[in-house]
């Protein structure tokens, strides 16, 4: 579909032109989004069919079996969804304020790193009952600091936060690599799983705790953004800094405070990864989830409840296509990135049809509603 209406120069009225919708019923908006997701899934099936030369039935059943094939896979799916959801929730307050925090990756990583740091130096010297709370606090603080530094500069001098936070990711990665090489100067350069400060397992696995934490944080973020005074201030600053200033909001304070919260939540996600799941840290601990979370948060329109579904969808694709690759005997994870990318393009593109509608030339013929 091509809406180059603005480009046509001839006197003839263009085939269609674009009009902004005044409003759209909520179910219609979600119907459009659902249609986009279905279209993306069909495109995925087609692509798999062309590339892998397998029947669509095989492709979809393989993807589904990747999630529902065994109870362990379901638990893995829940855990991955929970972690992605946690990071998506963490970046949301900042984005709602139009602060483009591309540094979630680094903020989660320093959170995980801080936990492992405590495990490494205090593990065995203090009991886990004391160690874990220390790790918790230090992780949150580390995440908050990592997000707070760019926030201070953004608030004071309007330093470009997108690139600042992006660079902080790589500084975090180098910091982790540096420390691990000090701890383990020889060998593979990897830190083995540490036996201290591991979070207790619930029902025999590390799955449920992440889920519980994610549910609690979802509720907290929802209430914070929707019903608290600070949440209101965030949306006002996001709409217009000038308006915010005019009604007496201290914009600088709001920016820094919001980013400290955002960073601390990222730190929490890092804590869950390090203390609850990996028990170690490496430069691949976060594995791009920080960037995916930005897209999840945005696609969910910063709504914590919608975020649950979007992160589930992304995890579904990731894990499902991973299984598909295994079933086809191809050992790489790149295909799932392609599929997730296609899904993002479709959802990003469909927003257009929610905000705008196309009016065709013979407008009495029919108004296209999609």
């Amino acid at each position, binding site marked *: 579909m091509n809406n180059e209406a*603005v480009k046509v120069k001839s006197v003839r009225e263009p085939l269609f032109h674009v009009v902004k919708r005044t409003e759209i019923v909520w179910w219609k908006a979600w119907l459009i989004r659902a249609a986009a997701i279905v279209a993306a899934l069909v495109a995925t099936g087609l692509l798999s069919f062309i590339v892998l030369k397998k029947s669509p039935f095989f492709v979809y059943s393989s993807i589904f079996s990747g999630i529902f094939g065994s109870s362990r896979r379901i638990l893995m799916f829940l855990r991955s969804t929970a972690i992605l959801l946690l990071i998506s929730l963490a970046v949301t307050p900042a984005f709602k304020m139009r602060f483009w925090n591309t540094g979630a990756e680094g903020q989660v990583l320093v959170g995980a790193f801080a936990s492992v740091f405590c495990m490494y130096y205090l593990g065995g010297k203090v009991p886990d009952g004391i160690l874990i709370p220390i790790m918790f606090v230090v992780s949150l603080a580390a995440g908050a600091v990592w997000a707070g530094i760019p926030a201070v500069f953004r608030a004071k001098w309007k330093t470009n936060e997108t690139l600042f936070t*992006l660079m902080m990711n*790589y500084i975090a990665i180098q910091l982790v690599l540096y420390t691990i090489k000090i701890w383990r100067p020889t060998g593979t350069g990897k830190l083995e799983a540490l036996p201290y400060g591991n979070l207790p397992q619930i029902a025999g696995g590390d799955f449920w705790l992440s889920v519980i934490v994610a549910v609690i944080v979802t509720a907290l973020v929802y209430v914070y953004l929707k019903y608290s005074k600070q949440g209101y201030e965030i949306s006002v600053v996001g709409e217009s800094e000038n308006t915010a200033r005019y009604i007496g909001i201290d914009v600088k304070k709001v920016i820094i405070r919001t980013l400290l919260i955002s960073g601390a939540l990222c730190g929490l996600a890092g804590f869950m990864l390090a203390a609850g799941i990996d028990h170690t840290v490496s430069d691949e601990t976060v594995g791009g989830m920080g960037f995916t979370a930005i897209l999840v948060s945005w696609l969910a329109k910063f709504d914590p409840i919608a975020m649950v579904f979007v992160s589930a969808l992304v995890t579904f694709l990731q894990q499902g296509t991973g299984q598909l690759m295994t079933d086809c005997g191809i050992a790489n994870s790149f*295909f799932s990135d*392609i599929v997730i990318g296609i899904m993002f393009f479709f959802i990003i593109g469909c927003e257009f049809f929610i905000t705008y509608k196309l009016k065709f030339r013979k407008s009495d013929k029919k108004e296209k509603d999609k």
Partner: protein
Amino acid sequence: MIVGFLSSAIRLSATFLYGSTGEIITEKSGHLNLGVPGIMSVGAALGCLCEYYLLKSIGTSVPFLLILLPLLVTFAGGALMGLLYSFLTVSLRANQNVTGLAMTTFGVGLAGYLINSIKAQMAIITRASKYYTTLFPFADKLGWFGEIFLSHGILVYLAIAVAIVAQIVLNKTRIGLNLRAVGENPATADAVGINVTLYRYAATCIGCGISSIGGLFCIMDYMGGNWEYILEVFGWLSIALVIFTLWRPALSILGSIIFGALYIASSYISGITFAQIELIRMLPYVVTIVVLIITSIINSRETQPPANLGLNYFREDR
């Protein structure tokens, strides 16, 4: 030692120079494209694929084609990614940052998949690398001067030429003036009859095409034809370099060399531990942050990004 260091820095700088020149052109139209890492990866992967099939079909009989065809394929691949980006942001008015990040996810995945499909016989393309890495046969005879300035492959000189041309076009021609107007204030540009949509599409496609050559150079010349997953980092650094050089392609020539030098510095300092190497690798990122902070504190009009950077234009919006 120092000669080798400078020579390597200049060689690596071409990756950053293509990346940042392309991104400057894109940003001048008002598009903050965070998809550069993905675009560079896709471009490089397509270029390598082209190289691979060329070597399989015609071998090394026509060295000239071994550079030209992959170069064109890479450019076309990058431009196609730019077309996708422009379609989403200009025609469908999608958020630029989100679109860019999705492009990066998609591009890195696509590149990885493409490369993986020929992985087993990938080594064949190292045979074409020597045509990329040398241009002047007499460079060795000119001592240090030859090694620093003349020992590079054709793509290094092309990068500098592209940056200079971009600088001239942006600042001295009508097209450049129009493009800057589109990036600064699209509504005004539209009012005087500049086709905003066309300029944004064209600048983004050309910019992405140029950026993607950086990927091809990195793999075929700098890495000697060995695929490594480092393009993502180089892509992000190229975006950072745009700010570092204050949106000036000519300044970017120098900036790229500095970034190249910082990136390889750890290999040229003797007697340091592996841990310290990781610490030195932090430098390019720290330096970028410092420059970001300094330019934002100075806050003069000359050092600012295009006023409409990151914003989409819809004529009927008020």
